[in-house]
């Protein structure tokens, strides 16, 4: 396998944007390209992730093309998935030897639609969607099962939430942040038991962009290239009653293939939109208790759907690049209840 390194990353996140998608994306892409040291036309491949139903627009990704430098014509592709999978496609392209560098971007505006209703369309269309289960309630079912199986408590969940928000204070891009007292959090009413507001994601509007490059090029471009030592993704069956919702087998397989267990991990950025899912993932990824989780605040604090997975990977890159850690796990998820998971291991030079 060729060495592939992340050389730059940029993001934009807000609770609600008045700018449209192109306007949000353009400066983020520009920033990532600028930081990379490559001219836009020198980047061989472009790949993005986004969702039509999230945006309320068929072909939503087409309008984004205006803002990302598609003239003269570019080698470009798009996945109807989180940008993390666009990163995967770009990484594969470099492995084929066809390209040496790639620009990856994603955007997600959760504010236009009613996310609870939109995500109900991501269930079994014959037997489940018609019940219009909202995403939080579906996650709540998983949370209830997990607390029971793992003998964890709502306090454990509140602690994840409080810690995330506290850490997010140091992250200028995080949307939810602050000092929250666990007792006070536990005194709040349920949103959908056993989940309270703080256990649920802070849905936001945002965009992310990243530039990756093969071996020698990455070394030329970055003072400290952050290598993608391993990257893999897997999916579990969809039906909520078919699998053990308290575990994430696909995350476990992906982690193993990505080489998570091979060496010491300093921190992990996990795309866990619900507090209990962080605990499920830590178990699935085999992360030891001394590994710092989501120093950025994670997807609990900032979740521009379809961009947040790539955001976690980017946050991990930025931390290593700045010298705060050498080896990290970054994760992205898709589908209800951690159905599909991507895991990568990043290591600074």
């Amino acid at each position, binding site marked *: 396998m060729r060495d592939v390194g992340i050389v730059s990353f940029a993001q934009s996140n807000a609770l609600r944007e008045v700018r*449209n998608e192109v306007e949000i994306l353009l400066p983020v892409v520009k920033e990532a390209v600028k930081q990379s040291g490559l001219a836009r036309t020198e980047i061989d491949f472009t790949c993005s992730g986004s969702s039509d139903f999230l945006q309320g627009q068929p072909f939503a990704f087409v309008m984004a093309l205006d803002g990302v430098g*598609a*003239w003269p014509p570019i080698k470009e592709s798009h996945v109807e998935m989180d940008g993390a999978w666009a990163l995967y496609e770009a990484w594969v392209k470099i492995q084929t030897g066809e390209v040496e560098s790639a620009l990856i971007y994603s955007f997600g505006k959760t504010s236009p639609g009613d996310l609870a209703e939109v995500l109900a369309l991501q269930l079994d269309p014959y037997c489940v969607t018609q019940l219009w289960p909202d995403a939080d309630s579906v996650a709540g079912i998983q949370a209830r099962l997990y607390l029971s199986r793992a003998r964890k408590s709502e306090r454990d969940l509140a602690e994840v939430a409080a810690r995330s928000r506290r850490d997010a204070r140091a992250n200028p891009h995080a949307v939810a942040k602050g000092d929250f007292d666990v007792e006070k959090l536990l005194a709040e009413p349920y949103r959908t038991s056993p989940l309270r507001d703080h256990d649920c994601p802070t849905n936001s509007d945002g965009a992310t962009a990243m530039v990756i490059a093969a071996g020698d090029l990455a070394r030329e471009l970055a003072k400290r290239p952050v290598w993608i030592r391993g990257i893999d993704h897997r999916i579990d069956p969809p039906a909520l009653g078919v699998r053990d919702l308290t575990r994430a087998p696909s995350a476990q397989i992906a982690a193993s293939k990505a080489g998570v267990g091979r060496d010491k991990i300093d921190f992990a950025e996990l795309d866990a939109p619900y507090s209990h899912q962080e605990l499920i993932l830590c178990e699935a990824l085999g992360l030891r208790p001394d590994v710092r989780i989501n120093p950025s605040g994670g997807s609990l604090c900032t979740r521009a759907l379809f961009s947040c997975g790539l955001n976690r990977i980017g946050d991990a890159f930025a931390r290593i690049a700045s010298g705060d850690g050498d080896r990290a796990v970054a994760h992205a998820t898709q589908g209800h209840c951690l159905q599909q998971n991507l895991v990568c291991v990043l290591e600074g030079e």
Partner: protein
Amino acid sequence: MSDDRAPIKSITTPVRLEYDFTAGQAATLFLRGLAQKKIIGARTGPGQPVLVPPRGADPRTSELAQEAVEVSDKGTVVTYSVIRVPSENIKFDLPYVCVNVLLDGAAIGFFHVLQNCPLDKVRIGMRVRAKWVSDDKLAPTVASIEYFEPIDEPDVPYEQIKENT
């Protein structure tokens, strides 16, 4: 246990999703202009091509195109088609003509409908002008322009607009 009923072949699930779109700066410029009977385009800077409607960026350079420039509501038809397919979005009687109009001052075509022109007189190069709704109906919406109609000006030779077709 046997079931004599006919098997279920399909189910109908009505779906209704409401989205609250934000216009963004580019569309806002444009829509506010329409409320004032103006067609506003945008460019990245002086001397640069004016894009109508504004889209936020100039696609050739991906630079932010936010400088507002008013263009004429007169223009040249650079291509067209006679439409005979109904759609619930469209209120015009069939057949109607859709046109791509290069408004004077703009660098890209503006898609709209042509009315008050016999079908056999529609041609590339003809001159047209926007027909606005009555003043009391003007609003920040594209519906402020009802349609385009021919005006009495000489056709523009194909050679001059070839690049825009």
